[in-house]
C-alpha cells in the first residue's frame, strides 16, 4: 500500500520492529496464560489456604506474572516505546536473547517452585536476571534518548527501578529457600509482590494506558500534570506500603494503601475523562475487560488496606492477591486483544501492495466473547470459593479460567492465521 519510502528519521522502519518480534512475546504470553491456569487447576485444593512457599500455587502465580505479565509488557514496550520516545530499537539479537532467556527462566523457575526443586529455581533466577538486565539496558537507553511524552517516560523510569528491586528480592527469596537466612521471609515475599504488582507492572500498565487508551479509543491524551500527580501518589503509597511491610508497621502500610488509592482515583479519573472525549463510538469487548480490570484496582487496594489492619479473616490475603492479579491480567488481556489485530493490520498495510485486512476482519469475536465470560466466571467463582471456603467453587473457578485461556489462545491463533493468509493471498 505504501508506494513510496523515506529515509527520513520519521520513516516506519526506524521505529517499527518486525511483527514476528512482538508476536513471539505475545504468543509465549498466551501459552503461559494457559499453563498458569492448568497448574492452578492442579493446585486448586491449596489455593484458599495459600500463605506462600513452594507448590503449584506459587508456580502458577509466577507463570502468570513472569510468563504473561512480564512477557506481554516486554513485547508491547519494545513495540510501543519508540512511539512515546520517538527513538527506535536496533538490537534484534539482544531482543532475541531476551525472549529465550525469559522463556527458559520462567519455565525453570515455575518447575522449581512446583516441585520445590532448588537448583531449578536458581537456574530460572539466573536466566531471568540476564533477561531483565538485557531488557533494562534497552529500556533505559531508549528512555534516556527520548524526550516526548514526559509522563509516560517517567512511568518507564520508575517501573525500571521497581523491576530492579523486585528482581533482587526475588533472588534473595530463592537463596533463602535453601539457606533460610531471612528472619521473616514472609515480609520479603510481600515486598516482592508489592514491587512486582504495583511497582513494575502497575506503573507500566498506568504509563502505557496514557498512550494506548487514547490510541484505541481515538481520544486526546490526558494532561501530563495530572498523570504525574497520579504517579507521585502511586509511588509515595508504594514506598510507604513497602516500609510498613518491611518494618512491621501495619499502619504505615495501610496509609500507603490509602495514598495509593488516591493515585488510583486520579488515574481512573483520567481514563474516564479520556473515554468521554473519544471519537470511536463502539469500543468493543476489549474495553469491557479493561473496565473490569480498572474496577479491580481500587478493590485490590481496599482489600490490601483491610489485610494490613487485620480487618479480614485468614483468607483476606488470598483474596487481595487474586484481585491484584485480576487487575493486571484483565488489563493485559484487554490490551492484547486490541493490539494483536491492530499491529497485524498495520504491518499488513506496510507490506502489501493491495488492501490489507482490517482490524475487524482479524478479530475473532466468538473466542473473545467466550474468554470474557470465562474470565469473569473465574474471578467470581474463585472469590466466592475463597471467601466461603467452598473448594468446589474454587475448582470450578480454575476450570473456567483454563477454558477462558484456551479461548484466548484460539483468538490469537486465528489472528495469526488470518494475517498470514492475507499476505499470501493472490492480488485481485
Amino acid at each position, binding site marked *: 500500500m505504501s508506494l513510496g519510502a523515506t529515509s527520513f528519521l520519521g520513516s516506519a522502519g526506524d521505529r517499527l520492529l518486525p511483527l514476528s518480534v512482538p508476536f513471539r512475546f505475545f504468543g509465549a504470553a498466551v501459552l503461559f496464560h494457559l499453563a498458569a491456569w492448568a497448574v492452578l487447576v492442579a493446585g486448586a485444593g491449596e489455593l484458599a489456604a495459600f500463605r506462600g512457599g513452594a507448590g503449584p500455587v506459587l508456580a502458577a502465580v509466577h507463570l502468570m506474572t513472569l510468563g504473561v505479565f512480564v512477557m506481554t509488557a516486554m513485547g508491547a514496550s519494545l513495540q510501543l516505546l519508540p512511539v512515546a520516545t520517538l527513538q527506535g530499537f536496533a538490537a534484534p539479537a539482544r531482543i532475541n536473547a531476551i525472549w529465550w532467556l525469559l522463556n527458559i527462566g520462567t519455565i525453570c523457575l515455575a518447575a522449581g517452585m512446583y516441585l520445590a526443586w532448588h537448583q531449578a529455581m536458581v537456574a530460572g533466577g539466573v536466566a531471568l536476571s540476564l533477561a531483565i538486565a538485557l531488557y533494562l539496558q534497552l529500556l533505559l537507553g531508549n528512555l534516556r534518548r527520548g524526550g516526548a511524552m514526559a509522563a509516560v517516560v517517567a512511568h518507564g523510569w520508575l517501573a525500571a527501578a521497581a523491576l530492579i528491586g523486585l528482581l533482587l528480592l526475588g533472588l534473595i527469596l530463592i537463596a533463602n529457600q535453601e539457606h533460610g537466612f531471612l528472619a521473616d521471609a514472609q515480609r520479603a515475599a510481600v515486598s516482592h509482590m508489592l514491587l512486582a504488582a504495583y511497582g513494575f507492572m502497575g506503573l507500566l500498565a498506568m504509563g502505557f494506558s496514557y498512550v494506548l487508551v487514547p490510541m484505541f479509543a481515538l481520544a486526546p491524551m490526558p494532561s501530563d500534570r495530572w498523570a504525574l500527580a497520579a504517579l507521585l501518589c502511586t509511588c509515595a503509597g508504594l514506598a510507604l506500603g513497602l516500609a510498613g511491610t518491611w518494618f512491621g508497621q501495619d499502619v504505615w502500610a495501610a496509609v500507603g494503601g490509602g495514598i495509593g488509592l488516591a493515585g488510583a482515583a486520579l488515574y481512573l479519573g483520567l481514563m474516564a475523562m479520556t473515554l468521554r472525549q473519544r*471519537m470511536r463510538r463502539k469500543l468493543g469487548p476489549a474495553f469491557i475487560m479493561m473496565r473490569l480490570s480498572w474496577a479491580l484496582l481500587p478493590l485490590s487496594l481496599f482489600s490490601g488496606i483491610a489485610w494490613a489492619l487485620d480487618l479480614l479473616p485468614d483468607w483476606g490475603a488470598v483474596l487481595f492477591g487474586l484481585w491484584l492479579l485480576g487487575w493486571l491480567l484483565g488489563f493485559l488481556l484487554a490490551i492484547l486483544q486490541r493490539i494483536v489485530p491492530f499491529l497485524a493490520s498495520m504491518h499488513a498495510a506496510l507490506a502489501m501492495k493491495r488492501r490489507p485486512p482490517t482490524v475487524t476482519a482479524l478479530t475473532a469475536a466468538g473466542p473473545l466473547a467466550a474468554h470474557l465470560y470465562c474470565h469473569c466466571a473465574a474471578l467470581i467463582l474463585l472469590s466466592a470459593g475463597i471467601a466461603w471456603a467452598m473448594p468446589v467453587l474454587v475448582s470450578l473457578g480454575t476450570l473456567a479460567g483454563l477454558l477462558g485461556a484456551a479461548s484466548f489462545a484460539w483468538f490469537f491463533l486465528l489472528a495469526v492465521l488470518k494475517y498470514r493468509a492475507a499476505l499470501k493471498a493472490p492480488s485481485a
Partner: protein
Amino acid sequence: MTVLISAPHWQADDGCHIDVRGLPAPQPMLQILALLETVAGGGVIVHHDREPIYLYPELTERGWNHEIVPGEAGEVRLRLWRDNAYTNGH
C-alpha cells in the same frame, strides 16, 4: 464526541490538505480522521513530520488508501483516497 479540526487545513487543486506537523500524539491521527469524516469526495494530502504508521489500520477500517508522495525536506507527505471497491461494497 466530535473532534474540532484545529490543525491548518485548506482546499487545493489536488484535494484537501491538512498540516499536522508539530502536534503531539495522538492529535495528528485524531485531526486526520476528523477531516476524513468531513470530506465528501476527492483526495486528502497530509503533511506530517513522521510516517503515521498507527493511522494505517484506522484508514483501512474506514475504506481509505494511502501512499507516500514527495514532500519538503523533513516532511512525510501522504496522499489519501477512498477505496471505491470498499465504498461500493458498503
